[in-house]
């Protein structure tokens, strides 16, 4: 069905072939280029650099990380691709102009504990969920 739609689109825009959107081929979705594959990158949030060491006792900061990269076909190269990502890819292939590719996003988040003083010099040790990206994947 994608091929039929593609032919249809080509016919409709035959007057301006140079402006026609380039329909992605299978080669475009090949994830062999690992540089652009969805993966985790390090991003350190430093409480020290924020100038907060007068009230945050520990930690000095935390490796929050972020996810970046392309979710390209075949998705199974991205170990954490969800079923939704497969559907999203199919719909994107059918309508690349309007439907984006699956999104590279966190699939596993970890908690951190922060130890800090409050205004009354009491000390709080609190666990914060979903603060650190442990794994990325396609959604």
């Amino acid at each position, binding site marked *: 069905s994608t091929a039929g739609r593609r032919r249809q689109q080509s016919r409709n825009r035959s007057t301006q072939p140079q402006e026609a959107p380039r329909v992605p081929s299978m080669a475009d979705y090949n994830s062999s280029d690992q*540089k652009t594959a969805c993966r985790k*990158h*390090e*991003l*350190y*949030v430093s409480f020290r650099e*924020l100038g*907060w060491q*007068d*009230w945050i*006792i*520990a*930690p*000095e900061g935390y490796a929050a990380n972020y996810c*970046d*990269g392309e979710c390209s076909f075949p998705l199974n190269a991205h170990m954490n691709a969800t079923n939704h990502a497969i559907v999203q890819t199919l719909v994107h292939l059918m309508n690349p102009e309007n439907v984006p590719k699956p999104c590279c996003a966190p699939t596993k988040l970890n908690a951190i*504990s*922060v*130890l*800090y*003083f*409050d*205004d*009354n*010099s*009491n*000390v*709080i*040790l*609190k*666990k*914060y969920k979903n*603060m650190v990206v442990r794994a990325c994947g396609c959604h």
Partner: protein
Amino acid sequence: LDGANEIHASFIHRRLRTHEKREMQKEILSILGLPHRPRPHLAHGKFNSAPLFMLDLYNSISGGDDEGLQGLLDHYKPAVVTQSPPLATLQDSTFLNDADMVMSFVNLVENDREFSADRRHHKEFRFNLSQIPEGEAVTASEFRIYKDCVSNAFKNETFIISVYQVLQEHEDREADLFLLDARTLWAAEEGWLEFDITATSNLWVMSPQHNLGLQLNVRTSAGHSMMLRDAGLVGRDGPHSKQPFMVAFFKVSEVHVRTTR
């Protein structure tokens, strides 16, 4: 930066503007559940027993794998570290596993009050529990006071240490007290004494107007009232690392909804 400390090609690298940095700080504070950046008064608090106890707890949950923590520990410890038993106990780690939040409270009483002849050796302790985030319920709470080994005239004695909750204060007579716990100890015993004040803390969190503090007294086995210092109990005049404090373990009892800013 990526794992190899190289700036990732797709990442736009620039320094944040002042207002962007301020907004980012606000966002992080919001995630931490704080309305503003705390401004603690740390004249002595930094080296106090409560932060050291909390660092012990933090270490036990972080597994000691934080290399930067040792420096912080050194920073927060007093210059002369006395040999003392570990602050956090096995019981604390049990509470810790179930807790979403642990909070230590410093004693707010700075000057001893004049009590009647009958209670002249009573000491009072007050803690501010007014800033507990909504939805946090106390699962366990302890009052902790350090006892040194006694080597004076009382060295072969046993002492009875009693902890009371102040129920009501009166202008013309002594306050009404409720006995929370009493414990018999040898003079030679040394270490942190823990008194369970869970029910009292719950009451104080739910109705702060009932938070009139604790009173503590010590008697000999013969029933004679005595100074806390003579029984080896460390008060305000003792080392910072042995100051009495209170610790409470909390669990979230409600779904926490972040408000729209």
